[in-house]
């Protein structure tokens, strides 16, 4: 039993990582290498030339800055809104609490595409198209984030909270000074997830931004792709560069990401 399971997991991890590894491999090839049949798995003579060229062709600094602003702001924003809402849903009593939460959960079932048009119309109405506020504002609240934070607040023991109440902490102090630090692992998880999610955000930035000046990573990559459609190694080098931050975050934050998936899994099952 165990060995079939191991074999299955092994195959799965190969299937998942193979495209990435191949992406890196191709990015190190010369332009003509891929034209041979069968296409080679590894570069004959690895070269970093593609990277240099990709760096020169992309407005790299600007794209990274835009993406970092988007991902950074959304990360902070989602952590704050999710933590506050999650805390309220988990620990405060107010009429309609569970009904409102159920309504939030229900929105998870709506396809994201459905919301794109109304969101665009709203942003357009306030004149934020092709600006940072337009790019960022609609991403600041995440239902999954709220679910994650609610669940982790529910899992915290009551006694520390009660000790703080006896010590004289008010509701805000309780949230900010006592509960939020206790929920730190979940906060970190949520921050990482939000960051990675936004770094790979494509559809919304594509719709709400127009100028090249406002392009974020995925959008720039797509443009790059249409410009150099014949040169695969070149494109792969650009792709590696653009996804590098996500890889790093993934590597460093592994522990927290796993935990986040476990918590939200438990929450959604409830």
């Amino acid at each position: 039993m165990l060995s079939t399971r191991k074999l299955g997991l092994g195959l799965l991890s190969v299937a998942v990582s193979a495209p990435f590894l191949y992406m890196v491999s191709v990015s190190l090839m010369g332009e003509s290498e891929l034209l041979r049949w069968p296409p080679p798995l590894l570069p004959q003579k690895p070269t970093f030339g593609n990277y240099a060229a990709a760096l020169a062709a992309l407005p790299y600094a600007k794209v990274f800055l835009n993406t970092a602003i988007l991902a950074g702001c959304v990360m902070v924003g989602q952590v704050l809104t999710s933590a506050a809402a999650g805390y309220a849903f988990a620990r405060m009593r107010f009429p309609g609490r569970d009904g409102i939460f159920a309504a939030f959960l229900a929105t998870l079932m709506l396809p994201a595409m459905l919301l794109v048009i109304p969101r665009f119309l709203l942003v357009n109405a306030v004149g934020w198209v092709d600006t940072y506020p337009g790019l960022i504002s609609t991403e600041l609240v995440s239902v999954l984030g709220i679910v994650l934070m609610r669940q982790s607040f529910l899992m915290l023991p009551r006694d520390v909270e009660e000790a703080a109440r006896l010590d004289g902490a008010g509701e805000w102090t309780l949230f900010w000074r006592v509960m939020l630090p206790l929920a730190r692992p979940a906060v970190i998880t949520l921050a990482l997830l939000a960051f990675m999610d936004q770094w790979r955000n494509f559809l919304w930035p594509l719709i709400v931004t127009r100028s090249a000046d406002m392009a974020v990573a995925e959008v720039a990559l797509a443009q790059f792709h249409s410009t150099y459609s014949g040169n695969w190694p070149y494109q792969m080098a650009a792709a590696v560069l653009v996804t590098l931050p996500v890889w790093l975050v993934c590597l460093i934050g592994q522990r927290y990401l796993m935990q986040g998936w476990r918590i939200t899994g438990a929450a959604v099952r409830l």
Partner: protein
Amino acid sequence: MASVTLRRLSKVFDGGVQALHHLDLDVRDGELLVLLGPSGSGKTTVLRCIAGLEEPTTGEVVIGERVVTHDSPAERDVAMVFQSQALYPYLTVRENIAFPLEMRGLAHAQATRRVLETATRLGLQSVLDRLPSQLSEGERQRAALGRAIVRGPQVFLLDEPLARLDAPLRIELRAEVLALHRAIAATMIYVTHDQAEAMTMGQRIAVLHEGRLRQVGTPEEVYQRPADVHVARFFGTPGMNVLQGRGRAGDKGRVIEAGSLVIPVELSTYEGELQLGIRPEYVGLCAVDQGVGNVDVLVVEPLGSETLVHLNAGGQPLVARLPGFADVRVGTRVGVKVDRRRLYLFDAAGAPVA
């Protein structure tokens, strides 16, 4: 400082569990009252109602002159040491102790001084900058005490603060809590399920059983004059023997028959079901047929200063506590003597029979 009064306090939890039944309790100003009861008897619930963490279903909580039944915990000026300590895990000992002062907006310099005083009193100076996870169990418990006493509240509630410690440390900290009580002359309610601890600590002991307050009295009172059979069983190591029996008229006056024992008593009227209580120290052994009945020896436990002998009295367990090393063999049959002035009689429901 202030007194604490509970009036007809009842608590029914959401699931329908009635944890407390009409509790009336008066804790005097500056007193150390021990609240004693077995696990699940409602001790924590009493403390939580006093602290304001639980709203009583009916009844009142009065602190000093004020009825505080519906006040928030912060308004009550009560400190509690939790069964689980409940220190802030990401704050150092210093920050943990300072937290209540900070919440009350004490000036920084003054707070620093108070924290140091408290830490010194509890021997925590050398660990002030450690996190709770870096402390020993005893130090953690001291830190929890420190956080409770630092702001000098009107009332201290301690929920089994020493239950997690090993025996020597428990004795050491018990003495410290007593010294602390004397030094700050505070009103303290100290919860424990350990009757020996209750006896050594309490000026008065309140005995809780299944959510009902059975007796409130000095250690001597609850030991010598238990208000019912539960209290009687609870005190002493081992606790009082309780035999199920019947009272009837015998050849030479009234007797109680309990298992294989027939004990003459001066009961003028009582007939029918009775519970007979005898503390192990007042059960003696003698030759067969010389006492009030014969019993079989089941287990002999020599403890050095005394020997516990577990007996079978016609199907009912009976423990005798004999001085020194007693010459008793397992499997033999012996006679039993009882000190008749030391008998306790309870009716079938457990109330004392006069």
